[in-house]
């Protein structure tokens, strides 16, 4: 299928499926033909069109011949978004510019859906110097796959520790400093437990920000990590002289699972012991709404969250100044885990040049500044360092707001949650056995041995 474009190929395969459907229908059915275009029509995946309105308006003003059709994908959980994107793919009419987070970056790159941006970046390197200088190397690295860049970025979230200052005050505690440790954490959790039915520490069973932060500070990961070769041009061009960029390669690889290595077991034993000692409430699955509710209702002293909670807690009715944040406590390391989101371009969609032109507009500082998920309230953390301002985060009353970006600047070993192409299935395995360990039905060792076995099976199937 060498000379078929991806869109043509997807359309052919959709036509095949539709053809099978048409064959099941009586009579003949003609496929709707694509509308002829004098103008360039670009399909752009947005979460909510209002949040990107400024970007779209300014771009279409500059480029009157381009019409950007906003494809609103309102899904709040990953599976809803995936369902929609896969359906448009299956129907042979995918978006030209998509929006994805760490979870699927490698999937889209690995399946050839997203176009490698490397050659375009090389051509327009000058235009991107300022953008990457304003973006921490740890974030940029997550957008690489096998030596090529596949996505730009606009927001990220590392899992920091959030504190309910009402409970903190009642327990007679002070906010810890950046250098605090797991032992400090433990005694604080004890002190904040039992105040009017409260628990010192709470978390929910998912992939990002569940017990994953403990895995990272215990200096390990669910999967073995290594760096793909390549990417030298990228680091040499945009991060020359940045010591935090030294040693980075062509993107992360996760060659094998290591769910039951001793450090993993140790981390799980620690969080399970918190539940057994009554410092953590029962760990339930969830999308975060109840966690947010119980935290803002003064039932939880500490919980993992990122910059998105600064605005989120204000929205849920907490007074500015009644919560704050800090680095994750140090254990064997103080490496944090993170997820990064941004736009990608459909490979073979026929509009790649125009899409790239759009992305050059997208990355501008003033355009990013006006994005609805940063303004008026920060609902996530900007990947541009310079957009993390007092003005933006100060209104949320989070005194330590600088922590959000310092996490990646001052702890540059911070890395993404594992995101191999089959990450969604991996996530399911992870949460299933996490649940069986936290409810005490399996010991941490048993749960992780079983997790490891299933992950090995998953790797074997995808080999």
């Amino acid at each position, binding site marked *: 299928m060498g000379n078929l474009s991806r869109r043509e*190929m997807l359309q*052919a*395969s959709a036509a*095949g*499926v539709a053809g*099978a*459907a*048409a064959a*099941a*229908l*009586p009579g003949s059915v003609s496929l709707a033909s694509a509308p002829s275009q004098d103008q360039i029509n670009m399909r752009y995946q947005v979460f909510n069109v209002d949040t990107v309105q400024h970007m779209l308006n300014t771009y279409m003003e500059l480029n009157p011949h381009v019409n950007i059709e906003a494809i609103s994908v309102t899904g709040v959980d990953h*599976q809803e978004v*995936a*369902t929609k994107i*896969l359906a448009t*793919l*299956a129907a042979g009419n995918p978006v030209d510019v998509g929006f994805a987070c760490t979870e699927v970056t490698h999937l889209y790159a690995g*399946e*050839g*859906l997203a176009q490698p941006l490397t050659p375009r970046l090389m051509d327009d390197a000058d235009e991107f110097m300022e953008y990457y200088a304003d973006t921490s190397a740890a974030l940029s690295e997550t957008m690489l796959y096998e030596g090529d860049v596949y996505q730009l970025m606009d927001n990220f979230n590392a899992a920091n520790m959030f504190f309910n200052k009402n409970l903190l005050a009642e327990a007679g505690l002070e906010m810890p400093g950046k250098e605090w440790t797991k032992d400090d954490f433990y005694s604080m959790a004890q002190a904040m437990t039992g105040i009017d039915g409260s*628990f010192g520490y709470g978390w929910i*069973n998912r992939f990002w920000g569940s017990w994953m932060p403990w895995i990272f500070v215990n200096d390990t990961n669910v999967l073995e990590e290594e760096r793909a070769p390549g990417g030298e041009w990228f680091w040499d061009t945009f991060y020359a002289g940045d010591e935090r960029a030294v040693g980075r390669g062509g993107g992360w690889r996760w060659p094998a699972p290591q769910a039951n290595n001793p450090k993993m077991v140790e981390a799980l034993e620690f969080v399970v012991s918190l539940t057994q000692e009554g410092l953590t*409430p*029962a*760990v*339930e*699955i*969830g*999308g975060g*709404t*109840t966690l947010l*509710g*119980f935290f803002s209702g003064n*039932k939880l002293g500490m919980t993992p969250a990122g910059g998105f909670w600064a605005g989120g807690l204000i929205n849920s009715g907490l007074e500015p100044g009644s919560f704050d944040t800090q680095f994750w406590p140090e254990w064997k390391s103080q490496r944090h885990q993170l997820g990064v989101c941004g736009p990608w371009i459909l490979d073979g969609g026929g509009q790649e040049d125009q899409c790239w032109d759009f992305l050059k507009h997208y990355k501008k500082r003033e355009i990013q500044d006006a994005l609805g998920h940063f303004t008026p309230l920060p609902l996530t953390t900007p990947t541009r360092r310079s957009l993390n301002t007092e003005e933006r985060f100060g209104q949320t009353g989070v005194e330590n707001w600088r922590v959000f970006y310092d996490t990646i600047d001052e702890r540059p070993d911070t890395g993404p949650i594992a995101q191999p192409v*089959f990450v*969604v*299935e991996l996530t*399911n395995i992870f*949460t*299933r*056995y996490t*649940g*069986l360990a*936290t*409810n005490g*039905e399996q010991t941490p060792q048993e749960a992780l041995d079983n997790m490891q076995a299933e992950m090995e099976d998953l790797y074997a199937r995808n080999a």
Partner: protein
Amino acid sequence: MASETTLGSGRRNWLPAWLAGDTVQGIRRQRMVLGVLFLLPTLIGLIVFVLAPIVVAVALGFMKWNVFRPPEFIGLKNFARLFQHELVGNSFSNTFVMMAMTVGMLEVFAISLALSVHRFARSRLAYIFRTVWFLPVLLSGVSVAVTLSYLFHTDFGVVNYYLGVLGIDKVPWLVSSDIVRFSVSLATVWRNLGFTFIIYLGGVSALPQEILEAATVDGARGLKRLWLITLPLLSPTILFATVIDVIRLLQFFDEPYVMTRGGPGDSSRTTVMMVYDTAFANLEFGYASSISVILFLIILAVTGFQFLLSKRWVFYQ
């Protein structure tokens, strides 16, 4: 029987002779033509929008398809795989266990409510009750997810709080593998009771009063009357409601999905959840289709069995 027997007198002139209603054959032809005409809208709609996608889905069951690449025919491999796949078998048994618990509670509660409210049928109070019971059916999506997770939370949940007031220990509703199927069934009963109730309400209200009164006069009272008279008269509705509920609940998805995502472990993972995850999370659309096909055959068999059995207990006037 003579084929040209004359029936009645009011033959309508605008009907063509072959459809004339004054012969048995004419009537038979009328019924046939009308039957075909009446069925057409449903049939065309179902063929285009329901059967065609089903045919495609069944066809995909014999293919490997991840959306990114064209489908590839692999024969019976998907089916061979699912029969060895422990998780699939496990999901079927979860589905049946939860279906049985839920349908059992649903039918008993719904019939009881319909019969109870019928005693006060015309009062304003009955009006209020009927509205209140139906409200959970009207709630949707996010509100159900949030409400259920708040209700059933082990440490902060409403249910456990009130149990605590009664001196009962905290129940790990959603985090214990032994209890979770019951919790999910309970929540499903809460959410669907109004649906089943309204179906029974129709049936109970249509009960022929003359027969019930005659039975009372003959001395059938209380449970005896319920068992010997009321329930048999209600049997067509019971058949309908149980068939529909069994079909719906063998495709159990919403409540376990928002409450537990199938956990802890796999203890509340239903078959349709497997289908959804296999397709949209694992990107194995062909395999997901093959599981759907097996589920379809099972539901078909169960429904067929219900109809077969119904010949023994359903009573049409």
